[in-house]
């Protein structure tokens, strides 16, 4: 240890020994990070992670073994790290960092907070907690061969939310239910179907034909409604939930197949106006399936990478329904299954159902391997990238502790040395965005909604929590009286939940004040009334988001023009060009900026990708137009060329 710390000056050596460090996340980066911290001489480390260990973690999360599968990541990581190095003091929390126990007082105990997270919600939250506690935060992320580390300090640098990130795109319900046109639409539908049949049914995830499709305006809609009445008497399917119907048929795979892929499709065909400009779907009957669609010359490929024929899909559909049915029965009456991409029957079911639906709608069929990527939002992950990023993370933390936060950088890890022979691209930290709705002094945003149809509950769940990341908001009207419409105290404002905003006098131009006591964060929202938003959106943030989108478009245009930039994010052989999140909310990813949205229960992900696009563009693109920007950037990077930073 002595030799190790010798390189650091005495002052920093002391700081390393006495500092308290919080590590948020004990996954791929977290395991490497804990090891690095212990071996750098840190003595007082706390680690928090909500997750438990899965088999697919073992190829990189080296503190875990086969026998640990199912146990708490934080606790096993602590035990393993201590076993190797018993001198350290590590405290583990198997808990969500977003829970109210971890308030600003908790965060204030630490000298530096290190993020090794895998999702944006938690990153947003830790960002706010560190701003509130005024503690430096080192943020990190990896995806395949790519990675990033950055430093966030209140008042000095951009915060995690200074550059708003493009929001996850969700698909309109009617695209999923009535008019799919891409494989991802069918995959999202199949995951919804899984939940309808075996899991926790969500009314937003209906899989039956949608008679409220806006395209069915006028007579066509009426016709469809009439035919619905007819269908009802035949199958008795529309008035019951899919679940109850399936239970009544005893989960007979053939009946389920024929309802979904024959009767429902016939029903869709009756909505004629949908098919005026589209290729109409072709219903399938379980007993007379075409034996096409498969790839015959790929028999030597493993099962997962082969394209199944329709007949094979139907067979696998049948098998998986039988398996899932018996799984469900084991759980008793109120049992539910949770969809898991690593559960073979669940994955088989989604592959088969998605492909059968794709075939019906004339959409290319995908292999199980590809569908797994898309359905499970799988980000490739390997030990090497995590090791690199964790090494960089500790170096940045050391600079902070030595009081040299100005020497900190945002560092991007490329897939291979770029055209300038650089594997790493360090960039100066940007100053805070004065318009940031999180770290500016008086955060303000404007949101368009339909005040007569949006309920208080939707406002809370989708806008205040979903969009703006508050976790325990109190919301009052800025009406001079301070009417409280949402309280963080459970049950206090429950009666308001189902009422529309207009009930409280909210109209075009009304302001509401949101206060999150945990994040010590206040946000004022001005609501603008609109009757209808495009693509069935329930709300739209004015200003920042459109700027972001414009920037993202610019970046992707640059990426398309230059070979070296964002396109290099995608491993070329297995690029997940689309993705659907685990909670069933579909999201689509354009391959130019796929990292921007990949985010889920999966492994670590890139931190702030709109910034990556910007900075990479500035740093790497070999287009004349951006030469100026690049020069600017390299000057920034090199300005301290002569100064050797003594750590």
């Amino acid at each position, binding site marked *: *240890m*002595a*030799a*190790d710390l*010798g*390189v650091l000056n005495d002052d920093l050596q002391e700081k390393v020994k006495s500092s308290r460090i919080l590590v948020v996340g004990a996954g791929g980066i977290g395991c*490497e990070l804990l*090891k*690095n911290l*212990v*071996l*750098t001489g840190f003595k007082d480390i706390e680690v928090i992670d909500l997750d438990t260990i899965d*088999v697919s973690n*073992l*190829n*990189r999360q*080296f503190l875990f*073994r*086969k026998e640990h599968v199912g146990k708490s990541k934080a606790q096993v990581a602590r035990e393993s790290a201590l076993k*190797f190095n018993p001198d350290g003091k590590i405290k583990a929390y198997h808990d969500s960092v977003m829970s109210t126990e971890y308030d600003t007082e908790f965060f204030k105990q630490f000298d530096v907070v290190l993020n090794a997270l895998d999702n944006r919600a938690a990153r947003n939250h830790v960002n706010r907690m560190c701003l509130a506690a005024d503690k430096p935060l080192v943020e990190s992320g990896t995806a*395949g*061969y790519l990675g990033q580390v950055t430093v966030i300090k209140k008042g000095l640098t951009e915060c995690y939310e200074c550059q708003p990130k493009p929001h996850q795109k969700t698909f309109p319900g009617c695209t999923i239910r009535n008019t799919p046109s891409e494989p991802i639409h069918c995959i999202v539908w199949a995951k919804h179907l899984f939940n309808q049949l075996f899991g926790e049914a969500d009314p937003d995830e209906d899989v039956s034909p949608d008679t409220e499709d806006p395209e069915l305006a006028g007579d066509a809609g009426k016709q469809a409604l009439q035919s619905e009445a007819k269908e009802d008497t035949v199958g008795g399917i529309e008035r019951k939930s899919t679940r109850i119907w399936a239970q009544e048929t005893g989960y007979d795979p053939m009946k389920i197949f024929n309802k979904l892929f024959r009767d429902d499709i016939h029903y869709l065909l009756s909505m004629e106006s949908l098919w005026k*400009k589209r*290729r109409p779907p072709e219903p399938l009957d379980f007993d007379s399936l075409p034996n*096409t*669609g498969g790839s015959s010359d790929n028999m030597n490929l493993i099962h997962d990478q082969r394209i199944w024929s329709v007949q094979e899909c139907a067979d696998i559909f049948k098998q998986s329904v039988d398996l899932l049915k018996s799984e469900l029965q084991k759980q008793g009456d109120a049992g539910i299954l949770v969809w898991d991409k*690593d559960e073979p029957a669940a994955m088989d079911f989604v592959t088969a159902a998605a492909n059968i639906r*794709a*075939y019906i709608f*004339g*959409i*290319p069929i995908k292999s199980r391997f590809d569908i797994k990527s898309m359905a499970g939002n*799988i*980000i*490739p*992950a*390997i*030990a*090497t990238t995590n*090791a690199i990023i*964790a*090494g*960089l993370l*500790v*170096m*940045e933390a050391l600079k902070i502790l030595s009081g040299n936060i100005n020497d900190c*950088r945002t*560092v991007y890890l490329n897939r291979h*040395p770029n055209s300038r*022979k*650089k*594997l*790493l691209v360090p960039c100066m930290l940007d100053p805070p965005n004065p318009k940031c709705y999180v770290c500016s002094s008086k955060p303000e945003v404007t949101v368009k909604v339909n005040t007569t149809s949006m309920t208080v509950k939707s406002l809370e769940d989708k806008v205040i929590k979903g969009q703006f990341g508050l976790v325990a908001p109190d919301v009052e009207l800025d009406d001079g009286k301070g009417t409280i419409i949402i309280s963080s105290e459970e049950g206090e404002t429950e009666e308001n939940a189902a009422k529309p905003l207009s009930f409280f006098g909210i109209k075009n131009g009304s302001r509401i004040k949101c206060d999150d006591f945990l994040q010590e964060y206040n946000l004022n929202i001005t609501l603008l009334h609109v009757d209808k938003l495009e693509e069935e959106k329930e709300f739209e943030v004015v200003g920042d988001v459109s700027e972001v989108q414009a920037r993202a478009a610019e970046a992707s245009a640059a990426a398309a023009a230059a070979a070296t930039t964002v396109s290099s994010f995608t491993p*070329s*052989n*297995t690029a997940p060009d689309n993705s659907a999140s685990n909670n069933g909310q579909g999201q689509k990813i354009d391959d130019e900026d796929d990292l921007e949205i990949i985010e889920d229960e999966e492994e670590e992900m890139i931190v702030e990708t709109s910034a990556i696009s910007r900075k990479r563009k500035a740093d790497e693109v070999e287009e004349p137009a951006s030469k100026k920007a690049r020069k600017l950037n390299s000057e920034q*990077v*090199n300005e301290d*060329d002569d100064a050797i930073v003594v*750590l």
Partner: protein
Amino acid sequence: MSGEKESLDKTRKYDRQLRLWGDHGQCALESAKVCLINATATGTEILKNLILPGVGSFTIVDGKKVTGEDVGNNFFLDKDKIGESRAQVATDLLLELNEDVTGNFMEESPELLLERNPEFFDTFTIVVAVDLPERVLHKLSGHLWEKDIPLMVVRAYGLIGSIRLVAREHTVIESHPDNAHEDLRLDRPFPGLTQYCDSLDLSTMKKKDHSHTPWLVIIFKYLQIWKEQHGGAAPKNYKEKNEFKKLIQQGVLRNEEGVPEVEENFDEAINNVNVSLVPTSIPSAVQNIFNDSECVNLQPESKPFWILARAVKDFVESVGEGALPLRGTIPDMTADSERYIQLQQVYRQQAAVEAEWVANRVQQLLQSLGKSKDTITEADVKLFCRNASFLRVLQYRSIAQEYDPATAKIGELVGNIEESDEDDAIWYILLRAVDKFYADFNRYPGVYDDQVEADIPKLKTCLAKLLHEYGNVYNIKDDFVHEMCRYGAAEIHSVASFLGGVAAQEAIKIITGQFVPMNNTYIYNAMKQTSVTVEL
């Protein structure tokens, strides 16, 4: 049954990486034998990152005993084991990482082993050496160069890291380029494609079929029309391509009122005009491979890569009529499943026919070289043909060439430093200077706290001598020398962790033969979080 279960477990365990290098990449990794020389922190970090993804086996060669200092920065050495064999302790702890990996150790100094039994090293897929004095490095690299075994030399020295890769020749079939053009042959359609497109008639199609005709077919059709109008020539310049786009636009169906319908497939066709009109050609890197004497003059000891390359070259020069074998894949597009699959089949079948020609040629070549038929399988041929435009061959310089003043590139390196005012490459020279120091004093500068100051002038002398050998190429600031002495050859764990990641990744590239490894030296500066790749 248990075999099946095992493979299922592996598929799940390795799922996240299979998405990067595929089953065959995993297979190559699982049959690789890696040798690590010296179980320092950097050494064990590299092995950890190879063991986790499932390398076949590893062997640690290390004659040293575990010290207190080792335990302080190496996760895979235990306090209780101080005084025991470092090779053995590290092997035991590393083996806990992955039950599918086997590990061995050889408790002997690498130098002695190299003298006593150099053949020991001959069976490895790659040798990774850390903390090796220059003298031993020369012996080892000379031996491995002769035996054609790749060597990776990794070093964590204070806040500086370096990786040097040596391989006589490294061939890459799957280089996974970031942006690959599709191989669609619209400029020179093969008979099957022409036949298929001719079987479709846009003018008689109803709306549903018309708007679900794959864009490939649309471009094919309109290209024929264009060529008839332009004396058989395709659109050449920007202006003509725009006119061609307009021509396609005019083909969009109109409703009864004469208003164009929305046809996504036509939009796609227009968007794909430019890429589709890029003439089919052979990339220069591939052309160079064909012209290489290893390709032209096959020997019985030629590697499969060169036999395959030769067969493809022969294909290009005969039935291929100047083009590489067809890749056989088409991108996703708006189309009904039926015709999409038909079109896919058209490409696949042609690719299969061409690959078969190559496979036959490979068999002829194998026979004429007196080699066994199964040296190269049909699957190998298919993979090779699919990647024919992405083939890469890297020839590395040897350590001897790097060090010999007659062939060294230090001058060039320094020239680049001065031009770009990026100084990371200077650390390479400093690392060479401390090696000289070690050769003179049998220790590194600054390793004893009380001698840091005294070592500074000594290191300056070493540096001056070194630079003199290479023709006084550069004047290095004293700051660098001071910094180097301050490091005292310490190995900082975070630097080791970083290098462990980068080096293991390069080793995986070498082992799997996928992706293009760096050529040939990588320097990392942990102070500034910068790095550079240079060829030395």
